[in-house]
């Protein structure tokens, strides 16, 4: 492939609360594959108010870190972050630009795409190199169809789905280059005036080994406690469908699916969940799926290893008792 004198692969690693976001670190994995083709370096780019912790994490996973520190680049100031990324891209002249498929990753790549006239692959779940061809696998129609797409412009640009790639092996600490980018005032049109944290507990669905999800079929917030009890018993995390969140039985960071988290635990138990595509697309890569639904024709049974036809309020308590018994044995 003709890289047009470009060789490095630039990865924008997003920060949250002073740390590197996991999917940003994961993007360094496919970056390494691409750098193998171009013969260049993997450069991790960290932009923020205080980069120390993130730079530390990134520096052992790539060949060079560029750190741009300024209060302009605080979380949410996307106009400044877009400008900063554009300037660093000008400087590095990369062969490819990668980021995590987070709201910020999507916005930055979209805006840069317009500024530089670039196509991009969004929410990439696989990267294939076949001879001279680089193919990015992206889900369409909520994941029932996949496309392998080729990008026609350079630098290549993509965002990767959380959990789709593994971060590279740790190695020796890379060189850290500090850059400054002055953001002209006229670049800033919108500004974050307040950041509110509504969700205090840290829900880590993406790394959970066991997830117990309650859907609308749980019927009420009170009944939802059964889902929590079963999750606790199994050392797992509580998941939810969109209706369960809209009814305020559980906070929205528990959502599994297209507009929630894409998860792949060893065990997934779906209680009173119908199995809509938008939900199933988020959990179909689970190791073992158990579904409880009173409707024997519910689509969730099509993806379940074990389906129990019955009322959640009757089934879950018996399951809890049975599992307790086995644990005591």
């Amino acid at each position, binding site marked *: 492939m003709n890289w047009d004198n470009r060789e490095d692969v630039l990865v924008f690693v997003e920060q949250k609360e002073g740390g590197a976001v996991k999917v940003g670190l994961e993007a360094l994995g496919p970056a390494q594959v691409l750098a193998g083709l171009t013969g260049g370096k993997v450069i991790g780019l960290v932009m923020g108010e205080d980069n120390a912790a993130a730079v530390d994490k990134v520096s052992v996973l790539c060949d060079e870190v560029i750190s741009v520190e300024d209060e302009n680049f605080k979380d949410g100031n996307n106009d400044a972050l877009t400008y900063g990324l554009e300037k660093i891209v000008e400087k590095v002249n990369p062969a490819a630009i990668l980021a995590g498929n987070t709201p910020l990753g999507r916005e930055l790549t979209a805006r840069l795409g317009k500024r530089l006239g670039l196509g991009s692959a969004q*929410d990439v779940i696989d990267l294939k190199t076949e001879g001279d061809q680089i193919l990015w696998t992206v889900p369409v129609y909520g994941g029932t*169809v996949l496309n392998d797409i080729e990008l026609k412009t350079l630098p290549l640009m993509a965002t990767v789905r959380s959990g789709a790639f593994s971060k590279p092996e740790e190695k020796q600490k890379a060189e850290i280059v500090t850059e400054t980018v002055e953001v002209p005032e006229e670049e800033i049109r919108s500004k974050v005036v307040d950041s509110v944290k509504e969700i205090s507990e840290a829900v880590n669905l993406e790394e959970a080994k066991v997830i117990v999800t309650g859907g609308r079929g749980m019927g009420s917030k009170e009944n939802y406690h059964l889902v929590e009890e079963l999750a606790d018993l199994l050392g797992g995390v509580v998941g939810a469908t969109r209706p369960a969140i809209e009814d305020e039985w559980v906070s929205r960071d528990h959502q599994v699916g297209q507009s929630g988290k894409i998860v792949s635990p060893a065990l997934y138990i779906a209680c009173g969940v119908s199995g809509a595509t938008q939900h199933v697309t988020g959990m179909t890569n689970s190791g073992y799926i158990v579904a409880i639904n009173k409707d024997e024709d519910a689509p969730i049974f099509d993806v379940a290893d074990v389906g129990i036809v019955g009322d959640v309020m009757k089934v879950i308590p018996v399951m809890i008792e049975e599992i307790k018994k*086995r644990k005591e044995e």
Partner: protein
Amino acid sequence: MDILLCLKQVPDDSVEIYLKPGTEEVDLDNVTNVVNAFDTYALEMATRFKEAVGGEITAVSVGPEEARNAIKNSLAVGADKGYLISDPAFENADTLGRSEIIAAAIKQLEDERGKPFDVIFCGREATDRATGQFGPQLAETLGTGIICDLVDIEQTDEGIRGKQETEEGYHLVESVTPCVVTVNKPPYDPRYPTIKSKMAARKMKIPVLSAAELEGAEAGEPNVEIIKVYEPAKREAGIKIQEETVEDSAVKAVEMMAEAKVL
């Protein structure tokens, strides 16, 4: 507030879409087109915003004649005017191309009205390809501000303040107008039209804007090529347990889970 609303039609996302067996062709034969869910949320938010602060909503959509339905539906709910942006030359436009076409239409409409739109609403993503690129690219093309993923919006002295959903809570983001906003699922559902409002919408004219009327509107060369279309490996459905009593079913399920060593 003068509001512009961008609508896109997509295959009904409550239907599971697959390929025609043995082909790389997506089977859309029995799938009707609907307004993208996130655009319906944008319409509802725009309508509530208009009701709160006054103003007017103009709805536009790029697409074939059939996309007229999307606009008609919006006129029956909250939009005041609608335009269909349609031309065979626009058919293969990708997201970037579509944002350029809509930007050209917006400029044209602004020239005709003699004033700019204050806020341009669109959905956070379309449910078919879900790339979320359109809103930010439209803002870049127009040279306006952009706030993504709003679940609420209000007017300020200088422009707007939006509640932007984040993983842990929300940001309050202020922007000068004109500004593009993309809308996530707010805590309410879109309203339905009434028979009366539907009848009224049916009578309203929806002019067509074609390439000839839109200076600088070009679909452009797509920057992305689809090489292969296929379905992911399917999960096999397992066993469905329906014993005499629910208790028996539950006991059996736990047994199977224990055998599979997932407990």
